[in-house]
């Protein structure tokens, strides 16, 4: 059987596989973060564009998903901050800005999903990465540039805000 070595695979092929594997999950994570369909679509495209540009620098110190999620979260942060700070009357709190496009196609969010969307960003990030992206504390710490114990503290605090009590207090 022929062994396919890394150098036999073009950037485009690696990238195409990443798009196929992670596109929907990146998009939905961005949507949960930004609460806006159009912004989420833009964030997804920007995430993959940045990933494509930086693909040659990815050396596998972290796993591929961690790397991509780090880009996605940073893109969402920048997008939210940038759209807000560049144009909006700054006396209006960021979280109270109306959604730009009515998401009429979406089903009614259950209470938990809605509560997650309304969490402050730092809690929302860890909840999405740990429970939706199935990332470990260590992977989240690497993606968000924070200490592993901080991940635990944030998840615990987020669960508390969501009114969730986990068995044995463990996450």
């Amino acid at each position, binding site marked *: 059987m022929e062994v396919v070595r890394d150098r036999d695979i073009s950037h*485009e092929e690696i*990238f*195409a596989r990443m*798009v*196929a594997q992670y*596109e*929907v999950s990146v*998009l*939905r994570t961005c*949507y*949960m973060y930004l609460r806006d369909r*159009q912004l989420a*679509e*833009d964030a997804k*495209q*920007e995430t993959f*564009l*940045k990933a*494509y*540009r*930086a693909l*040659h620098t990815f050396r596998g110190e972290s796993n591929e998903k961690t790397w991509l999620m780090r880009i996605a979260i940073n*893109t969402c*942060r*920048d*997008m939210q*901050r*940038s*759209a*807000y700070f560049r*144009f*909006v009357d*700054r*006396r*209006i*709190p960021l*979280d*109270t800005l109306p959604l*730009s*496009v009515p998401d009429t*196609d*979406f*089903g009614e*969010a*259950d209470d*938990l*999903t809605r509560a*997650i969307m309304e969490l*402050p960003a*730092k809690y929302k990030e860890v909840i999405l990465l740990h*429970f*939706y992206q199935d990332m470990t504390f260590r992977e989240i710490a690497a993606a968000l540039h*924070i200490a592993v114990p*901080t991940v635990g*503290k*944030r998840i615990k605090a987020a*669960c508390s805000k969501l009114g969730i009590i*986990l*068995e044995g207090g*463990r996450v």
Partner: protein
Amino acid sequence: MTTEQLRKEIHTGIDRHCAPLTSDPYLMQKVLRAANAKGERGGRKTKKRIPLALALGILLLCVTAGAGAAMLLWRDYVPQMKQEEHELGDYAEWPDAQRIQLAKDILAMGYLEDSEDTRILSDETATEQEKAAAADRLMLQLTGEDDVREVHSTLITYAIMGHEDTWTPAQRAWWNGIITMYGDDGAPDTLIVPTEEDLPEEEAVRIARAAVMEAYGFDEAYMDELTPVADLYVTDARPDYKRWVVQFKKYREGSDHYLEKNYSVVVDENGEVIADPDIGIDLPESMAAYASDENTDKAETVNPKTAEVYSLYGSQVNGRNVWRLSMVEKAAMLGEDNGIPGEGAIDEAEAVRIARNRLASIGYDLDSYAVSVWYKLYDRAATDISASDPFYIVYFLDDTDSPENVFSVTLDAADGEIRDTFTPGTVNH
């Protein structure tokens, strides 16, 4: 509930709610087209080719106009510095050789005056460390900063070309292209260079000005105090739809970054004032009504202090934790309403002492907590900002990396009178 049960519930809830969000069959093509449009192939950046006519134009300008040539040189140089920041991090993290080279290049472009430090750069008897230290001092002198960690390409660009608001739309479009190329913009819009076929900038500003005056009830004299900044742009969502965004800005007197007011209007290519959800700007009348509601309904909303504390929880600026910034750093890096105590204000230590005593008086002994002092030039939530006096907010945090318990005391900067006390249990007061 177990972790697995929660994980399953979250997966199911998000996937059900987000079911309409599916894959885009053209994503791969869009990304490759966007990357290639910016001179990249196979994930690697390639040098952009400059058309011959443009190259000749630049050469001609360099030869005929001294100041113009200098500006063009820096404009051409910025991508190189951005690339180095992209690869090596901020200037302060660069190896000595790169820091020295940057200073030498800027000197060669004519943006630094001859001095002892410029002499050291080319002194064969000086060590690399001495040259690097000289380079650092020159960069601080150029940017007006007092901490080398703050030096970066944007500040150097401002030092050389002036504040962005003073540039032409074409210059801002160029800058937008530069920062987008290096992935540190994230804005949903792309600024473009106006052509003769587009609605003229002056016309867009005139239309937007009239719209702001009508929506907010401002007169000509007040509008004259605001600085119009107009940019032509498209968005990824509507790449062929050009429109102007005109911002009317008012900075605090003597400052170019304490933004007191900002009214934004979008004008389309037919001269119509429109709302643009792509960049989150509504019609002026809606923005005016919203701002008015915000003031009158404040009592029914979340305590602004609570919102501010939450918004700051995980904040970082240029990789620095905001809670650990000094007041000077906050004023420089965050700007807006953040400042440093002026004449007649009580000093920082006194503000902390008053705040600590206040919390102790209601039963909170916070000696083990970190303290973060903020000096606010005005109250952002005030109806009339100009009538708002400076004040301190002294925060006490159990952990600056991930604060779970935050207390604050707000006090008047002039006499230390306590305006407000915030504890973790505070909701509205």
